[in-house]
């Protein structure tokens, strides 16, 4: 029951956050240099006088600001995120087309980074002070310092250009007409490089955090109690140290989720992965602000959702959560 109350409160917070972000979108359009209508119309649409006039009435740009805000928020609630003149499609449709690809990418990267990050971090903590620890730490430090887009480019350079082991562009082999399992396999091959690249940075983050948390927990009194009971080291590591060390890692994962979605922009751009990130990049190039802001809102909503999921996982992992 407590958990339900906690989650309800968090969901409510999330919704409020999304509404506030939409309001920020609204204010950004107004604050941008130039006429708000031309911002909404985008570079391409601003030249079409009829389109501009249409927008003016749709958004009620001649009305008081509060009415404008209400109109805008009303549209957002009904999932009307505007129209992209350049691409001649509603923003929502463009986004929904790309959403599965981004979910696939960020989902796999998230899982990969957590799995390998925690494992490597635990290994590092277990063998603290040895060459295993040092090498994992050095590698983690390097990946932590590497810009995502550069790592992506180098990966393409090595694996696609140089050795041709893995495809470096797109979602699947164009024009191949594959279906079913063969298609899935093809997509999987295309997924490897982008997912790994996106995951590597966060893998480093989780590895460092896991290591630090485990070393911290190993100093705590209850670990000493477990040793005094004669419990075997393997069990102490798993049931006492790791179990407790995972708590801050889960919290961190929630915080990093937003970063990962942002990182998807860079990864998708380099690998020409047809997701929302790529869409944002195109919108940037084309100065299509409606599309840009709409994509931003959706990515923010995704981040909020990821946060909710990690919050929920945290309540499963920490029995004390009812007390917050």
């Amino acid at each position: 029951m407590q958990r339900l109350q906690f989650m309800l409160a968090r969901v409510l917070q999330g919704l409020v956050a999304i509404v506030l972000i939409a309001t920020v979108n609204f204010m950004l359009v107004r604050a941008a240099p130039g006429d708000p209508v031309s911002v909404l119309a985008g570079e391409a649409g601003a030249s079409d006088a009829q389109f501009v006039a249409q927008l003016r009435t749709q958004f009620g740009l001649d009305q008081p600001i509060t009415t404008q805000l209400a109109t805008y928020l009303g549209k957002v609630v009904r999932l009307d995120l505007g129209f992209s003149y350049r691409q001649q499609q509603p923003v929502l449709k463009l986004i929904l087309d790309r959403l599965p690809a981004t979910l696939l990418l960020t989902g796999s990267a998230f899982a990969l980074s957590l799995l390998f990050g925690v494992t490597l971090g635990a290994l590092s903590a277990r063998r603290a002070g040895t060459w295993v620890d040092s090498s994992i730490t050095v590698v983690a430090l390097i990946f932590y310092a590497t810009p995502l887009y550069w790592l992506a480019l180098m990966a393409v350079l090595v694996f696609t250009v140089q050795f041709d082991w893995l495809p470096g562009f797109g979602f699947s082999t164009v024009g191949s007409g594959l279906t079913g399992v063969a298609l899935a396999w093809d997509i999987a091959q295309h997924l490897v490089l982008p997912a790994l690249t996106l995951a590597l940075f966060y893998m480093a983050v989780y590895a460092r955090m896991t290591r630090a948390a485990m070393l911290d927990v190993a100093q705590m009194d209850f670990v000493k109690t477990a040793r005094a009971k004669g419990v075997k080291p393997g069990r102490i590591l798993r049931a006492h140290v790791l179990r407790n060390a995972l708590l801050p890692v889960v919290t961190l994962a929630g915080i990093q989720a937003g970063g990962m979605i942002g990182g998807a922009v860079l990864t998708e751009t380099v690998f020409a992965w047809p997701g929302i990130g790529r869409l944002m990049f195109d919108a940037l190039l084309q100065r299509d602000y409606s599309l840009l802001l709409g994509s931003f809102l959706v990515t923010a909503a995704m981040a909020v959702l990821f946060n909710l999921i990690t919050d929920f996982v945290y309540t499963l992992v920490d029995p004390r959560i009812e007390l917050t």
Partner: protein
Amino acid sequence: MKSPFWRRFTRNKGAVAGMAVLLLVVVVALLGPWIATNDPWGMVQQPFLHPWTEPGFALGTDTLGRDILSGMIYGARISLLIGAVSTVVALLIGITLGAIAGYFGGLVDSALMRFTEIFQAVPSFALAIVLVAIFQPSVGSIVTAIAIVSWPPVARLVRSEFLTLRQRDFVQAALLAGQSTPRIILTQILPNAMSPIIVMASLMVATAILLESSLSFLGLGDPNQMSWGYMVGSARTVLRQAWWMALFPGLAIVLTVLALNLVGEGLSDGLNTRLDGRTK
């Protein structure tokens, strides 16, 4: 140099190496215009020149015949400048809000924390993109955008430090002595919270440099500044033929950010804080 801080710092070999690299980058950045042999924007040689084939162009030239080495030297200036300034602004915002939330507690704290949480819920890079795109790319808008997405972690750290320190008996004693609130915040609490803030600051500069380069890569950099991210970005489409155009600027970023991270760890050891920021 023999103070306990330096002793602990220098015990961390990585931190010492990082410090050395960082100093090198700073010197290069400061002496930039006098070291660089060419104007970074000047198209002075044939394009697509391989590195180490022509004297004076050690790292080759890019798609328009510009000297890559000079570009990198100027890039150092802009990266460090933006990294440092945006961090300072983020610190100012974060420390102020965090101190107020942590000191006063109650409703003020709840309100500020909700505010901070919303900022943290948004994917920071996406927000930075939107901000710079809307306000047109320039050093000013980039610094502002990075500061806006970077202040929440500082605020959280400062808030948690203040919340703990506020309850300490020496602060209670200061209250009993009749010291004024600003005095207590500035002279009693803040000096004890500085260590984790300093460590976090060094890591923030690293993140700021990564952010700036990512923005430049996407074409959102200041069009008048040659930055490392821009150089990698312009090399993206010619990766097959000209691997060196993307490699060297990227390496520069990796080395600088790595150096900053190592120095941050050294500071953490030296100041006796834990890596997550709280004082040991």
